[in-house]
């Protein structure tokens, strides 16, 4: 019972990170693909403006997930780290580059500096979600534990999950930023991000559909879990969430699109967790075997309840201040003539 509750907490954290942190990585993807200095300046300016107040708080969800994992499921945490140290180390280094470059870009005084830092920020924004997605894919497809440091996360399902992480982040980012652009009255950017949102939705949908065949061949157990019972229900919810988002994006319902897009991404993660029940590491370790002793689980749950009681109102305040524009900075295109501070 306690183990189930802690697992739920873990999935909540993972979903929050996939949606909020994922959108920040997705913003980096759009920064990377924004084009030349002149053409991409406005897109890059909006990305910086949207991300600045929230990216650090969004990043903490990753720490939250790691901490719950090692406190409440120590053998699983150790096995994941033992097996998947290559993508996890790359992700960790990428996180340094991404966060460092993003924070410092604000201080860049010349176009050259802004471009160099921007390139580091954008490239690592693609690398990190790919590696973390591949890690989740490797766990879900039963690759952990393994002695094969490379093969464990380069099977088809892991690569698919990595690609999905990048694409869904880009999708979420485009939806969120179209809304931000609307609030700021930047119509050209609303159009730019609407196009990007629809494009990413199509790619994500195609990947998901193609992924069915890949998962069926590469990870039959996961496939069975995702095509029956509660796992299947989650997949359906995710698909509906995606379709609803496309409709809302076309109609310009940005606030609702934010919500449905988040549901689409979250439902997949919940579906994967449901699909592998009662295993924590499929084929290796059940939830009960992975879980720490009850005293630790209960103290963690109490601590989390107390922590969330402070965290949720604080987060609500931050998002309210952000979404009502109170924390909005002036909009400056980046990389063009406005690269100066």
């Amino acid at each position, binding site marked *: 019972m306690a183990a189930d509750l802690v697992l739920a907490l873990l999935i909540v954290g993972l979903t929050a990170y996939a949606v909020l942190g994922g959108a920040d990585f997705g913003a980096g993807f759009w920064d990377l693909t924004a084009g030349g200095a002149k053409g991409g300046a406005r897109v890059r300016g909006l990305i910086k403006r949207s991300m600045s*107040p929230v990216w650090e708080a969004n990043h903490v969800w990753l720490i*939250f997930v790691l901490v719950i994992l090692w406190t409440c499921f*120590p053998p699983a945490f150790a096995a994941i*780290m033992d097996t998947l140290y290559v993508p996890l180390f790359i992700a960790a280094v990428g*996180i340094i580059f991404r966060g460092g470059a993003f924070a*410092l870009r604000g201080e860049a005084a010349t176009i050259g500096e802004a471009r160099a830092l921007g390139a580091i920020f954008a490239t690592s924004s693609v690398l990190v979600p790919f590696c973390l997605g591949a890690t989740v894919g490797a766990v879900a497809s039963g690759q952990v534990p393994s002695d094969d440091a490379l093969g464990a996360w380069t099977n088809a399902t892991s690569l698919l999950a990595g690609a999905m992480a990048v694409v869904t982040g880009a999708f979420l980012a485009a939806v969120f930023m179209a809304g931000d652009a609307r609030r700021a009255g930047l119509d050209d950017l609303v159009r730019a991000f609407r196009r990007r949102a629809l494009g990413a939705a199509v790619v994500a949908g195609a990947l998901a559909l193609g992924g069915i065949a890949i998962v069926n061949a590469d990870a039959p157990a996961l496939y069975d879990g995702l095509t029956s019972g509660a796992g299947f229900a989650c997949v359906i919810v995710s698909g509906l969430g995606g379709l609803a988002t496309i409709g809302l994006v076309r109609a310009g319902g940005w606030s609702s699109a934010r919500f449905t897009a988040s549901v689409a991404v979250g439902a997949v993660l919940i579906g994967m967790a449901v699909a592998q029940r009662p295993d924590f590491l499929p084929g290796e370790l059940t939830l009960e075997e992975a879980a720490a002793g009850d005293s*630790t689980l209960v103290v963690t749950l109490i601590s989390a309840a107390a922590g969330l009681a402070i*965290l949720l109102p604080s987060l609500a*305040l931050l998002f309210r201040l952000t979404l009502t524009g109170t924390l909005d900075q002036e909009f400056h295109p980046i990389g063009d003539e406005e690269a100066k501070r």
Partner: protein
Amino acid sequence: MVMRMDIQPYLLEARQMQALSLGVHIPLVCFGIAFPAMVLFAEGLWLRTGDPTYKALARRWSKVMMILFAVGVVTGTILSFELGLLWPRFMEEWGEVFGVAFALEGFSFFIEAIFIAIYVYGWDRLSPRAHMLSGIPIVIAGITGSAFVIGVNGWMNNPEGFDLVDGELANVRPMAALFNSNVWHELVHMYLAGFLVCGFLVAGVYAMARMGGRRDRYHRAGLIIPLAFVALAAPAQVVVGDWAARTVAENQPTKLAAFEGLEETTAGAGLTVGGIYLGGKTYGGVEIPKLLSFLAFHDPDARVEGLTAVPESDRPPVAVVRNSFQVMVGIGTFLVALAAWFLVARLRHGRLPASAWFLRAVVAAGPLAIVALIAGWITTEVGRQPWIVYGLMRTEEAVTGADGIPVGFATLIVVYLALGATVLYLLRRLARTPPEVED
């Protein structure tokens, strides 16, 4: 469920990799602990006096605070990964005992991230009062966050809060593990160190400006505010250092013996001040009779356990520990003297010390304080060796069997050098841009 039983040939590199990451992160933690209080103090002065100089200062500092927090976020994340990547057996076996501390730290970290954003981006957007209030959670979360991490470190040095039944964990009490007997002195010691490092570094920037002829109100306030914090923290650190030494004497006698390089168990043991310890001997330095016994137990004739009380395989590398300890104490003494100089001039003459040497000393004090901070952590962490969990698990039992540690280590060295160079470059340029004092 242990799969990797490979012997790790690069244990030392793994330890150095962890030490490097901590050495990069800990100075940033000092800014997390101390800087918000200084920024709020400056803002409070603005609210009370209406003097826009203070507002400009608080605003500039909050910008630096944000940058250093961001760098701290990413360097702290590396640490979380490394716990698992480098020490999976440690996490597997003991994670459930000390992990809750990290969960609580995670929430502190959330609060810090949220309110730093509100504070920094809320200038002139929130009412002055609301803005000031939004800074208070940053100060509190800075304290609680470091407290929980130090709780884990204290636990590694003095593991409590569980029973071992036939070698298996039983009756785990996470809260007892968190509030172990080391946490309080370590916390206060680190908290004050945070103020010394942050205070002297910030003061150093303005001391340099003053030496360059910028003697206006803005730069004067930028020098005096951090020095005022430092002047409070430095004397207190002397008392806490004594408390820390006594706790180590009680809980980790071998570590204490390594502080001095004391071979044999001795009653009325002396302490050698200064000197360098090489190959089992101290060269130079002044031995003060009975001082070690007095400091460790407040009794000049107390019996102090020597290194030979435990087998050689259970002793830390004495040279590293002793020399680091001396560096910490030596620099600490210098910082206390400097703070006293400031206090005397301020209280007796109502001004800053007039000597140019004072400014030069303040400029040097910032980097020196970082050296002392790192030396202090080396003292306690290398002094804990060969144990990762004192007396229960050896570091070599905790390390990963994974390949590629030298590659990872080399990568991190390059990454940190690049990061450090970029941060310093941009902060120096920020320091050169004129202050934005409003009329």
